[in-house]
């Protein structure tokens, strides 16, 4: 029963928000906002899952994942403007994100391996700002751009809201990544080694786990997820490096909803954040503070879920 409690907690938050904010509204209208919130929440969850996958394997909270994704989608847009086939541009985006992630994972991260988790996280923030600087230098910020996917044109109605195939892909990909990563960590040898690293890096080294190799795989997987996330953010939010880079912040909140380890809770937490943020639009008083909803929920989750557990940033201590 205990593992189900957090999921029930998130469901309770959504129900409470619905009753408090949407009571008295026509179901058709409030349904639109719920579906819209689920669409945004799935983006938070997708970004959060990428963060948790890497954190579980390496102990690094990668604040540069948004910036890496931004470079990928900007490159994809650029290649499409130059007439390259779409499939190649997407592959280039994923490859670039993986390469940048690996670059950091092989060259910089090992040098910080024995530092506190918070130091490792701040170092990735520096990497993010460098990437953002280069990206905004290469692609001027005052030009309006639009990145589209062929799946944007196919849609179905859900509770009165038109939901595109791209948004379904985000939800499907998020669930698939959760399942795929769970299977990988639980059933494969490198997955086992990643769990071993996450548990105790020193002991793992002593028993012969090839730390650099395992961590490189984790950085590459995280890079690929960041690249995919960047393509989705570029299409569904805005093709602006600044916006995509700092989407990592609500994604961190989603990751915290899963205590940086439970992918299922990241998914449900992200969706909860999206729905609550969307429902806040109904309140004339609270709608102006909608962007802080993810952090409010994350803070509440930290307070409630930390009781009797280790601190989120204390796993290596």
């Amino acid at each position, binding site marked *: 029963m205990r593992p189900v409690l957090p999921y029930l907690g998130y469901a309770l938050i959504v129900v409470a928000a619905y009753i408090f904010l949407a009571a008295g509204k026509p179901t058709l209208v409030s349904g639109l*906002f719920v579906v819209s919130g689920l669409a945004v929440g799935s983006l938070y969850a997708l970004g959060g899952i990428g963060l948790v996958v890497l954190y579980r394997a390496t102990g690094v909270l990668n604040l540069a994942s948004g910036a890496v994704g931004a470079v990928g989608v900007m490159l994809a847009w650029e290649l499409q403007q130059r007439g390259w086939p779409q499939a190649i541009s997407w592959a280039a985006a994923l490859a670039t994100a993986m390469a940048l992630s690996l670059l950091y994972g092989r060259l910089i991260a090992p040098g910080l391996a024995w530092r506190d988790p918070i130091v490792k996280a701040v170092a990735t923030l520096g990497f993010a700002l460098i990437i953002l600087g280069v990206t905004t230098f290469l692609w001027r910020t005052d030009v309006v751009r*639009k990145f589209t996917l062929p799946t944007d044109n196919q849609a179905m109605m859900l509770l009165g809201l038109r939901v595109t195939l791209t948004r379904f892909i985000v939800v499907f990909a998020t669930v698939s990544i959760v399942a795929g990563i769970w299977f990988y960590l639980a059933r494969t040898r490198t997955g086992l080694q990643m769990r071993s690293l996450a548990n105790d890096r020193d002991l793992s080294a002593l028993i012969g786990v090839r730390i650099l190799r395992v961590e490189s795989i984790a950085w590459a997987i995280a890079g690929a997820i960041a690249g995919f996330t960047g393509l989705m953010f570029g299409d569904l939010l805005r093709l602006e490096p600044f916006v995509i880079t700092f989407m990592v912040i609500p994604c961190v909140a989603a990751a915290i909803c899963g205590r940086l380890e439970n992918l299922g809770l990241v998914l449900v937490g992200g969706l909860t954040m999206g729905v609550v943020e969307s429902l806040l639009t109904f309140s004339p008083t609270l709608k102006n503070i*909608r962007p802080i909803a993810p952090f409010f929920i994350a803070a509440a989750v930290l307070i409630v879920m930390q009781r009797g557990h280790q601190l989120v940033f204390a796993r290596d201590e």
Partner: protein
Amino acid sequence: MSKAIYAGILLAGTFLAPHIALAAPSCGANTGQAATGKPIKVGGIYGAAAPGDFSAASKAAGAYFKCVNANGGIKGRPIEYLVENDQWNPELAAQAAAKLVGDQKVVALVGSGSFVEMSVNAPFYRKNNVMEMASACAVSECFESSNIVSTNQGPLPSSIGAAMYAVEKLGAKNVVCIGLAIPSVGNWSCGATEKYMQSKGLKGASVLLNPASPDVNSGLLEAVASGADSILVNLPAGLANAFLAAAKEQDLRDKYSWTSSTPLYDVSVPKALGDYWNGKVYVSAELTMLDGKGPDNQNWLAVMNAYGKSTDPRDTFSQSGYLSAKYFVETLLAMDPAKLDDRGAVTAAIKAIKGKKSDMMCGPYYVGDADRHMPNHAGIMVVIKNGGFEKVRDCFQYEGPYFAPLLATEKAMGLN
């Protein structure tokens, strides 16, 4: 004609065409002689940092001043144009003003463009009796201060122009204005649009988007829930693009009429919006069309080609920066040369500007000694079509309660 002669003409034409497409620029005294005297210091403050760049106006003003300096300057004296970037930081904006006005002793500020600078520095300019002839303003303080006058319209008149078009030409009865939840910007401009609608006995509403929120869907749904029949997008171009993309996702194009304030009048917008919005989004333009054939607009393009960089934007803010600089130079040229370094005399001369006309601006430009300045409150409408823009309505005067005191001032000055 022999093939050789024909080929020669063709070759010569190929090389000469770019140079004869625009006449040589005409600037200031237009003497053709470089100015060599003691420089006259003029300042400018712009905001350029992620996520926006408002430097186009000061770049155009700088290009015009270079052209003036190459053509006799101000009675033989060149203009030294000192520009600072506030990086959207109020503290840096205050430092920039202190540096230019206090340390460099500039006689005026010209071509400024920022979301931040004017709100921070308006009292400072009044206290120091220095005028700012701004060109890229967006906040209320820019138009409601004694020592700032801007050539561009800002979001308020531009939005009212769009709403007027929606009512008069598209049959709108209920317009919802989508603005930014930034004090002195969204509530100010969308609020005035609501009052315009009320003054016509119609309905108006506002939906303010938080620029920090990545989600625009909720704003769109709120607009839909308002019961409006027309949606007025009053957002920076990037956010407006995202908002229209969300509307496209819901296939709302034909369920509403769509208008926008000026930010969507940008050459990169039609391609970014795509075919879906072709012929459906009507945009309020603050100045003449970017390819306008009038002498001032052609001279702006010629100045930018000759004295600007190829990468400098050729947009509304650039037009506005050029026009502010031109009026400033004309004002200095008409002054007593002995008083060109006297800031008080320059301020008085700027405040005395009255009835200047240009093919770039619908109404007359004036300043006057008043607590508010908004000389540009008439505009044109364009529609996004075939990858570009087409004019659908020529100059028209904006209406609504907000303009009543301005029109009274103009009447007192004998301008209308």
